[in-house]
């Protein structure tokens, strides 16, 4: 016995000498992400977008031009400045009320971030809890939850959102809530499948054999193992939220006319493009901003999925 111990110690010391750098799951994911140049660029674009949105939300940037417009005309409307094409003073031109399009776009990023966050919190909470219950307990709980989301999924999404906003009322917050209440189905399906898979894993049985309760197993033991799916879904869900806000504002349910949202700018372009010469810059700025952010989230979300997928590991 004593010799066994000695040998064991020696073995371990040897192992330590030639030990490879040990990385945790997340360190490993980050390592693999940084090797993907496109993902790194996307990450910085997202970071830039978040910073700009937050700063404008705090009222620190993109306020100057508005104030200027306000001074020339206290009602915020300066007809003299209306529809200036891009120039040095207004890098992206001005809109019908003479407001600077660049600052409108920047303020729009804050709105889209707010909508995306509200929606994400709502749909992730619903999806994780219901998916976990359905997958872990099975039986009638599973049947009931599946029935709910199958029913929800069978109604065309846009119609359901529009119907919900009719109930909740117009406005950005309500649009975000409606998007959240409708958007949880796909994540819920994924979570249910993950819980089905994990509940028969040995470590869950081992945890049960240690007398650990069901809810503790569900949310403390299994949930961290599914966290990558939630994070990827969160990242890709942003696109859904941003585009959802734009679409709903376009049909007149989201942002109201005083709110500088991207959807509002695109919606107003209907009239602007018909002018002669066509006023294209508000439309172009909003679309490009949306396009870049969505593309960045898409690429980053994809890269994240690749780097967190254990099946692709060497």
């Amino acid at each position, binding site marked *: 016995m004593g010799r066994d111990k000695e040998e*064991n110690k020696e073995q371990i010391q040897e192992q330590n000498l030639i030990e490879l750098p040990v990385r945790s799951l997340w360190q490993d994911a980050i390592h693999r992400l940084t090797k993907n140049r496109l993902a790194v660029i996307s990450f910085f674009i997202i970071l830039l977008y978040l910073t700009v949105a937050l700063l404008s939300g705090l009222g620190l940037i993109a306020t100057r031009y508005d104030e200027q417009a306000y001074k020339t005309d206290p009602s915020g409307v300066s007809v003299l400045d209306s529809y200036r094409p891009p120039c040095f003073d207004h890098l992206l031109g001005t809109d019908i009320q003479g407001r600077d399009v660049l600052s409108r776009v920047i303020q729009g990023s804050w709105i889209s971030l707010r909508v995306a966050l509200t929606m994400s919190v709502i749909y992730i909470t619903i999806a994780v809890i219901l998916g976990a219950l359905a997958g872990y307990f099975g039986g009638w709980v599973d049947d009931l939850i599946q029935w709910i989301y199958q029913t929800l999924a069978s109604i065309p999404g846009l119609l359901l959102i529009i119907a919900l906003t009719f109930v909740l009322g117009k406005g950005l917050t309500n649009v975000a809530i409606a998007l959240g209440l409708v958007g949880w189905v796909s994540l819920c399906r994924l979570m249910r499948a993950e819980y089905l898979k994990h509940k028969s894993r040995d470590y869950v049985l081992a945890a049960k*054999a240690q007398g650990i309760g069901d809810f503790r197993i569900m949310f403390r*033991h299994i949930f961290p193992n599914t966290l990558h799916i939630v994070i990827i879904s969160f990242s890709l869900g942003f696109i859904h939220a941003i585009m959802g806000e734009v679409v709903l504002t376009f049909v007149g349910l989201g942002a109201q006319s005083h709110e500088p949202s991207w959807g509002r700018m695109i919606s107003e372009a209907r009239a602007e493009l018909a002018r002669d010469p066509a006023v294209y810059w508000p439309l172009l700025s909003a679309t490009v901003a949306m396009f870049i952010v969505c593309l960045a989230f898409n690429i980053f979300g994809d890269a994240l999925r690749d780097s967190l997928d254990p099946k692709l590991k060497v």
Partner: protein
Amino acid sequence: MKMPDKLLLEVNNLATYFRTEGYTSRAVDGVSFKIHSGETLGLVGESGCGKSVTALSIMRLIPDPPGKIVQGSILFEGRNLVELKETEMRTMRGNRVSMVFQEPMTSFNPVFRVGDQIAEVAIVHQRLSYKEAKRRAIEMLKKVEIPAAEERYSDYPHQMSGGMKQRAMLAMALMCNPSLLIADEPTTALDVTIEAQILHLMRDLQSELGMSILLITHDLCVVAEMAHRIAVMYGGKIVESAETHALFNHPLHPYTQALLKSIPRLGEKNRRLLVIPGEVPNPLAFPSGCRFHPRCSFATDICRKEIPEFKEYEKNHYAACFNIGKQHTAQET
């Protein structure tokens, strides 16, 4: 080996069935045995004979549906585990009865530190603070002879070798000082040198902590070394049970005899190992009468029709067979 006498666990006529789409799989079908405190009982048998289901039934961890304990009682420290509510049972698991599984590689949650998983047991059952639990977990890691326990505490499961994980598993199982440890093939996934270390460790811990062990294995050499008493399972039933020496020296049941003849012995030359013909009966459709009769070389008419009674033939030596006297003579000729 001294025989301890205080009764800790008494399983009476336990039956656990699995029902699927009209079929009933009688995985465990009338199993009875006793474990005294401080004793090691070896439960041996081929794959699929119901050993693990017996263990999971004691832990009340049979997935329901489709599984269900349909009859029998499990008296543990004077309480019938079969009748306990799930919440009461939860306070027993990991606390009074613990279990170590076959696969140390997958028995830990990959995203948590091994030490924290061990500490959690004490946090849940004894309501210790994290700090206290951590101290206790490190103590346990030292007890299971993991070197540099303080540093190993914060290892993730993938940083440990199989043998070390099984040690850590033992530490986790013994965290709350249970009076019964169920070890379901604890060394099957390990190589032989590690196997010996783990078995030694279990024996040392038993003499130190005084718990009883239900050791489930298909490896007769393992039980020969570890167990005070052995119960041999076949087709969901126990066919023979005796003290280790008695069982190895003069097995009564033809199945046990055949099993012992099918393992090689050191120093023995030019003996063909016995192969038991046929295969383990399907628990969906057991043969009539004695479940071993299609494979038994002593089978007679009565074996095909009636189920033999599990009787005491010698002191503390039980078996279920109609031909106990006859086969001895048959063997000698």
